[in-house]
């Protein structure tokens, strides 16, 4: 009954290529580090061979024997080559063999099973290795093509077609491409729609937190006055690639290990840290502020900072800043080293900062009054598991020893991954520290955990947020450019006569981790980066913000669905070209009829043109020109012929002949 071979060969090739590409993209999403190539091949090659073999052999026993032999050989080879399988391999091994088999089997031309299995593999890859947008977009496109081609193949298989291999028209290809784009947009819209829905899992979130979360989805992510673990996936979860700050050292190249703080959080919380009380005052100088005097033990650096539009409401300071110059209208809390402009101020400024030698052992903690608040622990904190960890790691009360022990313990216990920690606990921090199997998190979690542990040892500390790392300026000047992808969080400990000492418990590979250059270039919004100083920049930013608004795509999706189900009137049949000329030819006929009527031959009501012509013939008055005019009229009126000049002349000749009949009488 079914015969897919009736389908065009190119369509069959497209279907095969699409399902193979889908599977390949799903496999590419798996983490290469966790799933080495030998194990990947061990789980895919036997299934693929078996899928191809099933076309050749109908014997189930033969196939089973082949499967067992191949799989055993492949696993043994992988074991010999790279050792025992990893956790990722263990997760994938249940899906990869059937995926490979379903992809290569392709007996019934239905890729549904292969697509479903590849979706599972893709999700495993996303869970293990994070989301890669280009991979996901490619998967959506190829899976759409696979489904589309399969549907067309099915049409060919269950129906008879007269013309074999009918080529697809350009319009059909265009429709397929537009539907493919629509599929990608739909996926994004559904994702946004689910995000916009009020979820029961976020029901405890206060309205203020939600506002902050919404705000954090904008450009200030990671740099605002909130430090919330949940809500919109975390502070640093939606980093974008804009340029924020350009830092240039007046004497030397800027070190990549430079921390640029724009804020801090002093009040600890299990779900959210808060900034705490501030004692703000105006700036000490008209164009800047002096924090404290120079320290002879330290090396003095001078840094020039330029802010782009997205960072205009922040002031970024390196650690141990002594003096700031170049900005007016500042609000400062000198003791806490907190500084903000009163409004939007994107003027460049210069910073003088000190580089101290490494912290000595038994360094003295600053004991000012405002520092006491930095030892408070959040309410409701169950200290027992934390204490157990501190004891296990041997964390003492000496700041330097405590920092080293906590950093080593965290690096050993948790791994860096830019995804929210998962686990059985209700709080992300507990999942980050105490989940049984996979404990992962990013800088927020490392910093929070370290700060809590330090406070448990009565070491005052706070969390500083800002930028770290950056990228060398392409002009070779030694300057570094920071974007929001370089946002970072760390711990700051007040040390006597040194100010706030930075302690970064995040593994070095994860500090201010930047995205690859190609992705960043794609993500970088050229409008906001290059048009900072143009007069239309605010309007463009408004448009960009509107496009990025989470409600936009869901609303468009809803409107599209409504438009699809709304009834529409059927179109009118297009008029024939000849009907445009009907009034003209009718007028010519009326002229002819009037001439005939004047000659005494009037067409009676209901008499057809043919019978009238017969009547004239019977009367012996059917002039050839009159008959020709009648024929011309019929050709235009009923034959679909155009009323061209020849027929107009014929009609005119008929009218003249009719007039001549009267004159002749």
């Amino acid at each position, binding site marked *: 009954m079914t015969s897919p071979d009736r389908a065009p060969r190119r369509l069959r090739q497209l279907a095969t290529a699409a399902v193979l590409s889908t599977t390949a993209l799903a496999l590419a999403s798996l983490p290469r580090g966790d799933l080495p190539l030998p194990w990947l091949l061990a789980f895919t090659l036997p299934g693929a061979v078996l899928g191809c073999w099933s076309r050749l052999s109908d014997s189930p026993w033969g196939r089973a024997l082949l499967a067992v032999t191949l799989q055993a050989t492949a696993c043994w080879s992988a074991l010999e080559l790279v050792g025992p399988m990893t956790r990722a391999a263990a997760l994938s091994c249940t899906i990869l063999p059937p995926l490979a088999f379903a992809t290569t089997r392709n007996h019934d031309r239905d890729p549904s099973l292969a697509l479903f299995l590849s979706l599972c593999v893709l*999700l495993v890859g996303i869970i293990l290795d994070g989301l890669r947008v280009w991979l*996901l977009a490619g998967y959506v496109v190829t899976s759409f093509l696979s489904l589309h081609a399969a549907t067309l193949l099915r049409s060919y298989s269950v*129906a008879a077609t007269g013309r074999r291999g009918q080529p697809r028209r350009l319009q059909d290809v265009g429709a397929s491409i537009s539907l493919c784009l629509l*599929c*990608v947009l739909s*996926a994004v819209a559904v994702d946004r729609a*689910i995000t916009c829905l009020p979820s029961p899992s976020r029901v405890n979130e206060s309205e203020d937190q939600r506002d902050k979360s919404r705000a954090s989805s904008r450009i200030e992510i990671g740099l605002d006055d909130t430090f919330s673990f949940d809500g919109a*996936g975390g502070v640093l979860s939606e980093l974008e690639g804009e340029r924020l700050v350009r830092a240039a050292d007046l004497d030397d190249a800027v070190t990549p290990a430079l921390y640029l703080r724009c804020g801090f959080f002093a009040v600890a919380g299990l779900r959210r840290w808060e900034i705490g009380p501030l004692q703000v005052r105006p700036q000490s100088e008209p164009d800047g502020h002096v924090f404290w005097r120079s320290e002879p033990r330290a090396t003095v650096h001078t840094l020039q900072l330029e802010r782009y539009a997205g960072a205009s409401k922040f002031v970024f300071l390196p650690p141990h800043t002594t003096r700031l110059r170049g900005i007016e209208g500042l609000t400062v809390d000198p003791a806490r080293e907190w500084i903000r402009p009163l409004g939007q101020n994107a003027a460049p400024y210069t910073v003088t900062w000190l580089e101290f030698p490494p912290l000595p052992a038994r360094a003295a903690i600053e004991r000012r009054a405002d520092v006491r608040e930095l030892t408070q622990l959040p309410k409701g904190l169950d200290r027992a598991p934390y204490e157990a960890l501190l004891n296990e790691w041997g964390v003492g009360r000496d700041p330097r020893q405590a920092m080293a022990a906590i950093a080593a313990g965290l690096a050993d216990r948790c791994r860096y991954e830019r995804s929210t920690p998962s686990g059985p606990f209700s709080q992300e921090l507990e999942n980050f520290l105490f989940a049984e199997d996979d404990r992962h998190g990013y800088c927020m979690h490392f910093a929070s955990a370290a700060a809590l542990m330090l406070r448990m040892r009565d070491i005052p500390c706070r969390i500083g947020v800002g930028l770290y790392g950056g990228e060398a300026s392409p002009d070779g000047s030694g300057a570094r450019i920071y974007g929001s992808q370089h946002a970072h969080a760390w711990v700051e400990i007040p040390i006597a006569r040194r100010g706030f000492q930075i302690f970064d418990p995040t593994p070095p590979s994860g500090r201010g981790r930047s995205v690859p250059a190609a992705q960043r270039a794609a993500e970088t919004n050229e409008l906001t980066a290059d048009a900072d100083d143009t007069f239309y920049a605010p309007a463009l930013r408004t448009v960009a913000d509107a496009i990025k608004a989470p409600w936009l795509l869901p609303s468009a999706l809803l409107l*599209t669905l409504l438009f699809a189900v709304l009834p529409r009137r059927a*179109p009118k049949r297009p008029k024939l070209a000849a009907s445009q000329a009907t009034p003209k030819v009718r007028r010519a006929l009326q002229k002819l009829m009037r001439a005939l009527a004047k000659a005494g031959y009037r067409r009676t009501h209901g008499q057809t043109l043919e019978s009238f012509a017969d009547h004239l013939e019977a009367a012996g008055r059917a002039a050839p020109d009159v008959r020709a005019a009648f024929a011309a009229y019929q050709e235009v009126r009923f034959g679909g012929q155009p009323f061209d000049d020849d027929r107009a002349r014929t009609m005119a000749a008929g009218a003249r002949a009719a007039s001549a009949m009267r004159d002749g009488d």
Partner: protein
Amino acid sequence: MATPNSSLELTPRGKVVLWLAALTGGAAWLGGEEDARIAAALLTAPVIVDFVAKQRRLHLTAVHLAPRTTMAGALYTEQILIEHRGRRPLRHCRLHEPRSMRNELPALLPTLTPFQPQRVELRQRSMVRSHIIERVFVLESEWPLGMFASRSIVSAAATLITEPARVTLRADLLEAGADVETAPVDRSLRSGPEFYALREHNMDEDARAVHALRSATLGALVRRTTRGRTPTSVGVVLDLRRAPGTPRGRGLRRCEWSLGACATLVEELLRRGARVRLLLIDSTPELIDVDGPARRAELMMLLAEANLSPHVVVPAETVAELDGMTQSYWIAAGGFADAPELQMLPGEATVVEEAPA
């Protein structure tokens, strides 16, 4: 929006994907997990795209075709003209007529451009004897992703007469009224008796028909058999009455065979040059003189529409209309073989029955 003659329904693939999408969407909503959200988006997107892009204007399609007369079970190729009157072209639609395409593949229409009629050939086979005045076609499409199937019914005012299937009648039935083995006594141009075949000679038969040369060759007596001359006027009685006491719904197979036998018999008799007068006995008995193509078409239409009827008594004068016939056939389509009217038939009456299997 569904219209009375069009529908949109989920295919099995669509049901599975929609269930999975609903489950993952619910999980993403409840748990707020990003991975579940991605899964829900990936599963929901094709359903949405298929729903939005689905061709819902299938019913804006007109089908034109000529009247057709066929026999039940006979294969034929129908030529139809199909025209779409919507705004956008229809893609990958399948067209079929459920009545006449039970085992035949539907026709695939890769692209149906608006207002451009397209000629389509459909292989059809009408299996049920009938006379319909409206052809009903089904146009369906799963384009583009096969999650939903849109289906629309397109009807066309065209008659389809499905005559009874022809049956193979026994030779003795056809030759019942013929002048078997009688030499022609005149030189008329009418058919028979003519040489038909050779067969073994039985000793008690007339020896004048023995074929001497063939008997000598074979060494055994062989005789000629001839096809007898068909009577010039033949009466056929098609009795559609159910036998008294027979419940409705029984004897349908016999009825179909009898109607086919009637059609076969009349055609054969007409081919042999006979004049056929047919008495159709149902609730209102009807007498038809089949003396030309028009009356033959009328008879076939009657046979296409015929059904068994309750038992009624046929007036004697109605049966007497067949008095002038030299030969009569009685076809008891309703199984009423003992009808008293059978005795009233003039001449030699032959009962047409299906040979036992």
